[in-house]
């Protein structure tokens, strides 16, 4: 079975990313099985699903780090062939270079582009201000907290000004409070930049708080199970009844429905 997924009708926006019957296998293991979907220009898409459902693999394919086993992946009507700074990926953690300061980490992409030092300086300084790390420019990653490190990783990717931002559980390793702050910051950056964002996360609330659409994937092999549009205006109220209802729906589809009221008692004749 395959579900075709397109952006909400009438959005009137051009299709930025088109994935057509994508299959991804590693040897005998089929990780992604015929996924088709498209993402509109400037859309914020979230992908949730159990671990091992191929959502990170999907991002790596979109980033051009792995070539599809079958099917096509097109960005701006062109097949993805290898990595391209214009569609860039932020990893979960450990991706900063420990031997570079925060400043030098953020400057990496601009150095690779061989920009002149003056321009690099202006751009990096601006980005450090944007993510609130201006006073930590000369610190090394191991001297920073997890949240600060992810801010730096985000700034490093924003430095090359990608128009597709791929985020692979970027806040997954952070504590709950820091995660909320960074979600707000990501939202602010998204709303100001107009970039197309695909966020892979295992945090359903995070997906519903940020995304235009939430794609739910099933596992082994990864397929699209359901698409939940979130129409509420941003910034959203995390505690709103609408988001709570959507959360229940999503968790239900994932087979994790919260039990309210009566606590279900498991079978009485179970053995341990």
């Amino acid at each position, binding site marked *: 079975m395959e579900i075709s997924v397109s952006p909400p009708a009438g959005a009137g926006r051009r299709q930025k990313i088109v994935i057509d019957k994508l299959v991804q296998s590693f040897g005998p293991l089929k990780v992604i099985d015929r996924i088709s979907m498209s993402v509109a220009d400037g859309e914020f898409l979230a992908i949730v699903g159990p671990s091992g459902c191929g959502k990170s693999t999907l991002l790596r394919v979109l980033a051009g780090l792995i070539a599809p086993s079958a099917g096509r992946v097109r960005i701006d009507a062109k097949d993805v062939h290898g990595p391209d*700074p214009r569609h860039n990926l932020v990893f979960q953690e450990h991706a900063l270079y420990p031997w570079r300061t925060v400043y030098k980490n953020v400057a990496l992409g601009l150095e*690779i582009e061989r920009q002149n030092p003056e321009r690099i300086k202006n751009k990096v300084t601006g980005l450090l201000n944007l993510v609130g790390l201006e006073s930590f420019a*000369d610190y090394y990653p191991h001297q920073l907290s997890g949240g600060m490190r992810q801010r730096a990783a985000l700034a490093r990717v924003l430095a090359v000004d990608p128009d597709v931002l791929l985020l692979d559980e970027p806040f997954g390793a952070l504590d709950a409070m820091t995660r909320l702050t960074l979600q707000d910051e990501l939202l602010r950056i998204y709303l100001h930049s107009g970039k197309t964002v695909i966020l892979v996360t295992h945090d359903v609330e995070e997906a519903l708080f940020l995304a235009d659409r939430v794609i739910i994937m099933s596992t082994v092999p990864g397929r699209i199970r359901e698409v939940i549009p979130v129409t509420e205006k941003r910034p959203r109220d995390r505690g709103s009844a609408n988001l709570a209802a959507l959360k229940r729906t999503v968790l239900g589809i994932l087979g994790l429905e919260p039990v309210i009221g009566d606590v279900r008692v498991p079978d009485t004749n179970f053995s341990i």
Partner: protein
Amino acid sequence: MAERAGTAETVERPEGRGAVETRFVKVFPYAIAFLSILAGWQIAALIFPAYLIPAPRRVLVRVFQELGREAFLVTVGKSFLRLSVGFVLASVLGLTIGLVCGIWTFFRRTVRALVSILQSVPPIAWVPLFIILLGFGDAPIILVIIIAAFFPMTVSVMNAVEQVEPLHVDVARLLGADRMQLLVKVYAPEVIPAIVTGAQVGFGNAWRSLIAAEMVGGVNIGLGWFINFAGEIADMTAVLAGIFVIGFVSAILDGYFLERLKRRLLKWKYL
């Protein structure tokens, strides 16, 4: 850079009192070790006659006498020259081969096999062969030093390239890095700790092999020869003075220069 320096107070760094204590804790064991060697030596000197074991004071005087002699300085200089040439050549060779091993699996397997066979032979055992092949002189000694210092560097760099964090490579590729940029911006910084380790271990090997090769290598100049010759004419003061100079020079080169180089290259690890 300067305008950002003012904000450095926000995260505390171990400095002041702590740093002084650390320095004390580091230096103190060395002082004890040095003094106990000196004490043992002094006691031995009291038990044995002076022509067998001269007292530390006499040896120290002899060291300063020798350091005032041009011939001795030339001998030390010659040893140092052989060491430098051999060690630098071995390091460059080891680094190159180690890097190639890291990116070429077949080559790596071959080199691993080669290393495991050749490393089991103490470098000094090659001396007679090299003397016959290359004749008396600097060449056989330098070759022995190269063999001694080459393996640690190669193995250390080879392992490091294999263990380069794949995520770090992906990040640079995503930002558009070409092969050369990957090498300079990811692989090189990532293997620097291994280069430092390889250099330190290699240096220790090179230094030991240098002295040994000079003792048995049929040369008539160099620190190893100096000790050997002094032993043949039963000049124990000179033997011990030579040993003292070897220990002293080695400690300075390894403990000071290589350590400083390491801290400079790995600045980010020591913050």
